[in-house]
């Protein structure tokens, strides 16, 4: 459904998201004493889209064979789909990839200060209590760890915004009905994006949880249709 919504651009966004985070520890530029690889938690990661990209990047770009991703999702069907897709990757039976059923607002199975990188792509919009989820992210991250969130957002150019809104409110549910026979869930998608906080509001929510934010706090993608927000837990 993301495919329809963003006309496939979301794959480019995901590539950019991962490349920019540059996961993995290059053995050539690491002091040998310290621990190996990153411990990554991909929340709402259902189908494993982000996780596979993270592991590919760590392995091929940073020659890191230790970085590990835990995919967490509230929906067991999504996790099943992810496990199935993992079979087509080199990570299916490796200790580098793990799937767990969890609600982002209550991650009791994840110890405090144990994660290097927490990612959530196109997921936080669906959370009932976004603040609670951000607080949990803060708790599970190590000092110096990074919270990174990619989400559809308020378009920042008024002309573009007007066109985009017309497109999203009328065309997307229609396409949804034609393609999937499911007008309602597309309507919900469009509305939940409209309700999602603006880039500045969301940046401030991240700051309020105690994170340091890089620069202005976010990066707009494709005229602000989506945005990447980051926060660093102080060390």
């Amino acid at each position, binding site marked *: 459904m993301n495919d329809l919504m963003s006309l496939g651009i979301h794959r480019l966004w995901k590539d950019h998201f991962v490349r920019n985070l540059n*996961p993995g520890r290059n053995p*050539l*530029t690491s002091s040998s004493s310290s621990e190996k690889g990153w411990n990554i938690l991909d929340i709402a990661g259902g189908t494993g889209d982000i996780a596979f990209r993270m592991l590919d990047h760590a392995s091929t770009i940073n020659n890191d064979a230790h970085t590990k991703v835990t995919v967490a999702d509230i929906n067991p069907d999504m996790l099943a789909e992810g496990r199935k897709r993992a079979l087509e990757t080199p990570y299916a039976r490796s200790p580098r990839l793990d799937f767990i059923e969890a609600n982002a607002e209550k991650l009791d199975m994840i110890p405090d200060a144990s994660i290097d990188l927490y990612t959530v792509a196109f997921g936080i919009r669906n959370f009932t209590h976004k603040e609670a989820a951000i607080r949990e992210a803060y708790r599970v991250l190590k000092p*110096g*760890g*990074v919270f990174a969130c990619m989400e559809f957002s308020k378009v920042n150019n008024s002309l573009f915004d007007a066109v985009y809104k017309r497109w999203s409110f009328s065309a997307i549910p229609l396409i949804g009905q034609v393609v999937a026979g499911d007008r309602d869930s597309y309507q919900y998608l469009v509305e939940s994006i409209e309700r999602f906080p603006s880039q500045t509001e969301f940046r401030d929510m991240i700051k309020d949880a105690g994170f*340091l934010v*890089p620069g202005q706090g976010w990066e707009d993608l494709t005229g602000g249709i989506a945005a990447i927000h980051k926060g660093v837990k*102080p*060390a």
Partner: protein
Amino acid sequence: MAPIRLSKSVFGTLRVKPNHTLPIRQRCLYHSYEHDQPPPFPEAESSILSAAMRHVPDHGFTNAALKFGARDAGYLDVSTNLLPRGVFDLINYHLVTQRLALKDSVQFPTEGQVEGKAMGVGAKVRALTLARLRANGPIIHRWQEALAIMAQPTYAPASVAELARLADEIWFLAADTSVDSSWYTKRASLSALYAASDVFMTQDTSKDFIETEQFFDARLKDVSRMGSFMGAVGEWVGYTGHSAVNVLRSKGVRI
């Protein structure tokens, strides 16, 4: 039409005191005169970047230097995400901190303290510029890669702006008080001189960078020959701000 309206409001104050107000306004933008200036970088960024600078001689201006810096500062590899421009943030940190360090690293004897003539503005500008060039000494073997990054389209505007700030800082610290039309030319000439010497220095293998000093002096002489020490030679530099004023005047704007 639109640019003129905009310029009118920018230059509007000039009617009170023709020829003088604009330079003063501009000068307030940059120099480190105010004592209660906020620190140029937030605490966490500052601790990561200053630690990373210590790895530049070995690793260059690279992500590796940033990661080593982050770990030295008690952070993680992933914490380098705090720097949205990555390696350019490290280069920028070097540029800004070295510019701000000038006012403490170069101290001129106050008038009356020494016998004979006090140092002229020109000699002070020369001393400050050479001091700033020398501050690149420890990382000069890594400076070419930094210049290549600074020249990238994304970062060129920020790099040029920082160069302008450096030129302004030097003229300010040299206690140049003239606020005439040579204000622009002085800064533009010094920026050009500095940039040329900066690039020259990356190739300089002479002891104490003596050849860079000679190169700088030779260029300085070229510039001086064209007017009273970087004087009002608007034709030479063709500085846009300068010509903009003339264009507006020709359109009847009272400046």
